[in-house]
């Protein structure tokens, strides 16, 4: 290869692209994009959440194109999303408006509306089902409830109950507010229009909407680790799950001409309301619990809970100095696209930099040797 043959670099990239393309398309059993939402739903949810774009079709394409690498797939979505114009903002929605599919509270046994276990693996045995590898007759694939993965789940004895009404599930957090344990919800929205982290760089201290956006787009694993460290003593962040709810949140916009509110669809979300604090003091009998809030699109309880723990820690009045309480630390380091990009850029050549570093090392060595021989 010639010393500066551009073809070399271009050819190498070409070959790499061929190898990738092969993995994605040239196999006997190519994964259909349409299979992703049904069969790899949690992966798809994570990708769309971290990609900051709720679009199952595009998400499925990204998952396929990325060979199932969730960070790479989220990155593909982000790099597409960023080119879309922002047409406007929806009207703020409340978790109260969610059409609930699952909701639990670990703070109270009996909650208004009751606990609804819903679709969860929490109480299943984590045993590999060797039968999943065998081909089944097509009819076995459905359990009659429309659940694609129902074949290997325990069949409910009765058909599933119809979806409950929205107002059957008051927020548990409202109970705590009503009892005076927690500050009441602000009557007016705190911010007229949200800070848009995709259009403006963060300024510290951040506005609440900015903080929540960064957290909501954060990488699941990174946030899990931070939240875990916070609970293990690096931040004293052990709170209670006031409520964890999953369901479909309506998206409402204000009509540009009439100003009337119109529901344009629903987005599945997971919300976590973490109850943090407690221990009233003699000096201070104010409502002394605060709420750590977590929300992610799709089903991702791990991230929603982690987010609420982190949010609660960032809100703490009396900080312990732990990383999880440091806004700059948390918000700068949980973004998958930024973190993976910078860590992996170490693969780029650094010949010039390393040469500069070697020069310094040798220069200091010479100084030391000269000093030795002189004295």
């Amino acid at each position, binding site marked *: 290869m010639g*010393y500066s043959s*551009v073809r070399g670099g271009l050819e190498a990239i070409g070959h790499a692209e061929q190898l990738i393309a092969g993995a994605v398309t040239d196999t006997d059993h190519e994964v259909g994009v349409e299979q992703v939402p049904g069969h790899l739903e949690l992966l798809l949810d994570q990708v769309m959440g971290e990609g900051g774009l709720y679009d199952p079709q595009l998400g499925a394409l990204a998952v396929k194109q990325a060979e199932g690498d969730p960070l790479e797939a989220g990155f593909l979505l982000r*790099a597409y999303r960023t080119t879309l*114009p922002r047409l406007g903002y929806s009207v703020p929605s409340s978790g109260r408006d969610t059409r609930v599919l699952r909701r639990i509270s670990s703070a109270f046994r009996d909650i208004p509306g009751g606990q609804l276990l819903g679709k969860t693996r929490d109480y299943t045995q984590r045993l590999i089902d060797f039968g999943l590898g065998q081909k089944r007759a097509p009819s076995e694939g459905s359990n009659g409830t429309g659940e694609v993965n129902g074949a290997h789940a325990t069949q409910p004895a009765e058909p599933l109950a119809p979806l409950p009404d929205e107002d059957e599930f008051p927020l548990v957090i409202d109970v705590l507010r009503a009892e005076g344990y927690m500050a009441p919800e602000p009557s007016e929205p705190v911010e007229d229009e949200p800070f848009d982290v995709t259009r403006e760089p963060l300024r510290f201290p951040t506005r609440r909407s900015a903080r929540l956006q960064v957290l909501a787009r954060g990488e699941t694993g990174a946030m899990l680790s931070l939240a875990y460290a916070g609970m293990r003593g690096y931040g004293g962040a052990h709170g209670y799950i006031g409520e964890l709810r999953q369901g479909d949140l309506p998206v409402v916009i204000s009509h540009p001409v009439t100003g009337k509110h119109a529901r344009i669809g629903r987005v599945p979300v997971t919300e976590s309301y973490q109850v943090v604090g407690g221990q009233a003091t003699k000096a201070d009998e104010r409502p002394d619990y605060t709420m750590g809030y977590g929300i992610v699109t799709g089903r991702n309880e791990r991230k929603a809970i982690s987010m609420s723990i982190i949010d609660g820690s960032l809100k703490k009045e009396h900080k312990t100095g732990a990383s999880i309480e440091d806004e*700059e630390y948390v918000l700068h380091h949980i973004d998958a696209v*930024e973190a993976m990009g910078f860590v992996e*850029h170490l693969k780029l050549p650094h010949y010039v*930099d390393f040469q*500069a570093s070697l020069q310094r090392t040798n220069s200091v060595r010479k100084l*030391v040797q000269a000093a030795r021989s002189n004295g």
Partner: protein
Amino acid sequence: MASATTDRPSSSVRGLIAERGGDFSGYSFAFLDDMAKREIRRATLKAVAIPGHQVPFGSREMPIARGWGTGGLQLTLSLVGSEDRVKVIDQGDDASVNAVNLRRLVAQMTGAEETLDTAEATLIQTRHRIPEEVMRDDQILIFQVPIPEPLRFIERSVAVARGMHAEQDYSRMWLALYEDIVRRGEISAGAGYPVMVNSRFIMAPSPIPRWDIPKLNQADTLFLFGAGREKRIYAVPPHTDVRPLEFEDYAFKTEEFDGLACEVSGATDVYLVESPGENGTSRWTASDTNYADKVAAGIEVNKQW
């Protein structure tokens, strides 16, 4: 620098895309939407107006990874028109895989011509080098910047560091240099030596070697710096004072190559990189490959920056 006016890639670009074997018709000219381009240009103008000051901007996700030149790429894509000639170097090398990939992306998305020739290019995007060949006032050099904050390693908080710049509170930076001298006998910064711009702001020149630092001072060329992940743009306009931080009795020194010559071109007095060869020998070649090629071809090149 004709600004982008078309929304869709030109037909020649479509051809290139077809050659690559994918369908990317859903993207705008130069990838970024017009709002993004406008915003980046505004930030760039502000950066030019306040030399060395880091201007925050709404950095977009790019189709290449963060830390791989997304800041430089956004600057390039916000400035490039279809008549531009674009050169991209990585560590001085046009053939470096990442440089090839970036150049290809710019060309695919805009139809701009690719070039390797420093003198021919209208826009040069670079990672960690300034070309040996002197650049003119009708050219722009765009640096990819990993860490735009020169104070990062003495103050990790962005908010505090911003305040320090605002107040020109740089004594801790000087202290770090003093301590360096006490511990090592000299200032140890190799690539990315901190500089003072226009007697006002301390600036990270991106990790260029010391060799390139003097070229920043009073140049004819506009230097733009883009940090995508960190969301900052800054600039050194033409004919601006740029001085390395130094003590009167511990003067700034560039790298020395003790009479070594480039094995490709025979050129001396250029920045060399070492490739370890067999049986403990090494091969020294100029890191600026276009410069080496030109000299090897007998072309006269001005490198008196």
